[in-house]
């Protein structure tokens, strides 16, 4: 009897899991296979603009049909052979790395200060960090245009103080992209850092101080290593989406701010070359597979530790 009930229970569970499972398989996993398939096809003027991979050919003489599969590696060869793509990949990684470091340098002291504040103040202080994340990403980027452009807030301030006399424009440069991306991704860094720093046992630091350890050394030998999971999680949460970022370089960067998200967008929308856009996406995905897997590992361990 109990066995029967359990079997029904397990069956019910299976049905429950199946709904999100099938959804993700259809709308998350299968699309990647299609992207991979189309990255191997040839662009052509048609609707949709690529040649079918698999085709049934009618053989007139024998009266039979033949299955034809055309695999075309030229899209990938083009990625490897053209400096534009390689430079875009390298530049994306560079910009993502700088963004991650800036977020870490700015976010770590913030997370540390909040974690060291009185317990009753931690909630509201943390809320202040998360709140901008709830407002539109696009609008937060837009806010920086008015600040960084020539005759913008920074420029006016510099001219007013007499530091510069010429119009000074930060907008449409890599600097603007660094500022905008650091601005948008900062909450993603502070959140996991705060989560690990808050759990840190303060008696460990007291013990270090009692044993004559200077505050800085205690920080470097106790706090920093113990907060490493938070640092890794936060860095990956910033780095991975940054590599493929499109909106920020498009709005704040100059025409020569080459990033792979922008290249993909242009191949797709401007050149209407779906196969090359797919190949760019697959190459980006292959590059990100390792960081994504590390992120999932860290994320899984953190949820387990919440028990």
């Amino acid at each position: 009897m109990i066995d029967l009930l359990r079997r029904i229970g397990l069956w019910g569970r299976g049905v429950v899991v199946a709904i999100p499972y099938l959804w993700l398989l259809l709308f998350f996993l299968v699309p990647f296979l299609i992207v991979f398939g189309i990255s191997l096809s040839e662009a052509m003027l048609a609707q949709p603009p690529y040649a079918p991979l698999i085709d049934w050919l009618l053989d007139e003489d024998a009266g039979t049909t033949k299955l034809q599969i055309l695999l075309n590696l030229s899209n990938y060869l083009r990625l490897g052979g053209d400096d534009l793509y390689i430079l875009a990949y390298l530049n994306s990684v560079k910009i993502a790395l700088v963004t991650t470091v800036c977020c870490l340098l700015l976010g770590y002291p913030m997370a540390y200060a909040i974690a060291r504040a009185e317990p009753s103040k931690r909630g509201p202080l943390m809320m202040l960090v998360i709140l901008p994340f709830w407002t539109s990403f696009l609008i937060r980027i837009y806010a920086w245009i008015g600040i960084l452009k020539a005759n913008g807030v920074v420029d006016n301030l510099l001219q007013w103080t007499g530091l510069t006399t010429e119009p000074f424009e930060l907008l449409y440069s890599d600097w603007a992209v660094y500022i905008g991306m650091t601005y948008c991704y900062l909450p993603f860094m502070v959140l996991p850092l705060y989560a690990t720093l808050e759990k840190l046992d303060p008696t460990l630091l007291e013990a270090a101080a009692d044993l004559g350890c200077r505050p800085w050394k205690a920080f470097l030998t106790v706090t920093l290593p113990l907060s490493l999971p938070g640092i890794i999680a936060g860095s990956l949460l910033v780095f991975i989406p940054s590599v493929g970022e499109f909106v920020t370089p498009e709005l704040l960067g100059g025409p020569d701010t080459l990033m792979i998200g922008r290249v993909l967008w242009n191949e797709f929308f401007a050149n209407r070359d779906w196969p090359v856009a797919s190949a760019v996406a697959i190459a980006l995905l292959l590059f990100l597979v390792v960081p994504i897997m590390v992120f999932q590992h860290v994320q899984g361990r953190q949820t387990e530790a919440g028990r």
Partner: protein
Amino acid sequence: MKQMGKLAWALWFGYAFLYVPIALLIFYSFNESRLVTVWGGFSTKWYAELLQNDQLLGAAWLSLKVAAMSATASVVLGTVAGLALARFGRFRGRTLFGGMITAPLVMPEVITGLSLLLLFVALEQAIGWPDGRGMTTITIAHTTFTMAYVAVIIQSRLVSLDESLEEAAMDLGARPAKVFFVITLPIIAPAIVSGWLLAFTLSLDDVVVASFVSGPGSTTLPMVIFSSVKFGISPQINALATLMMVVVATGIFIASLVMARQERQRKRDEQMAVQGG
């Protein structure tokens, strides 16, 4: 103590960095002058112009509909997914399932957008559905990437939760479905509310994925903002941004008030139960 002083400075610098741009944006939305950063006196004329911009209002209405539908769908799917990950132990395909849940959190938007568009095109060729692209495809796309956030919120809430309440109900003979609706669901209600709000804002905010999967005649609000921002800044966008921020801030404020009240009520009930017993 001295170190704490430096830390406090770092914290305030961080807050200034986060809030000064937003404050400036709101300030200049009341600027009379067309030149956004030159102060020309107080005026609300950009708000009035905004309310007459039919293209923008239409896009905003579409975005709100898409956001409400996809947030609701992603709360249902995400809650089930979070429940499965936190409570069902090991089941076949759990690793793949967990991977598919967390990967969308960090997946670059251009990849998500492109891959979903190619899926929709392939599906249309194969089975004739979805017929063209528009509200349906945008809603499906948004549900797919926002359900990951909901699932993670629900999962972490359930993991930190004591399982004994659910076990007690089971021991008393409640069926799993009843346990879920009577015990688990009320406890995770705050997490569901914040999951819905997060999914709603993420959907309302998305420009990249929507650009890929939308069709002619279905332009969302972020797409309109994006294209007008590319032509330069305009006071109308400042006014729109201010309105959006006011709406979001009010929503979050009300939600947190309600949740704080419920939490207090729950604690009182617990205390009463302990004292009564």
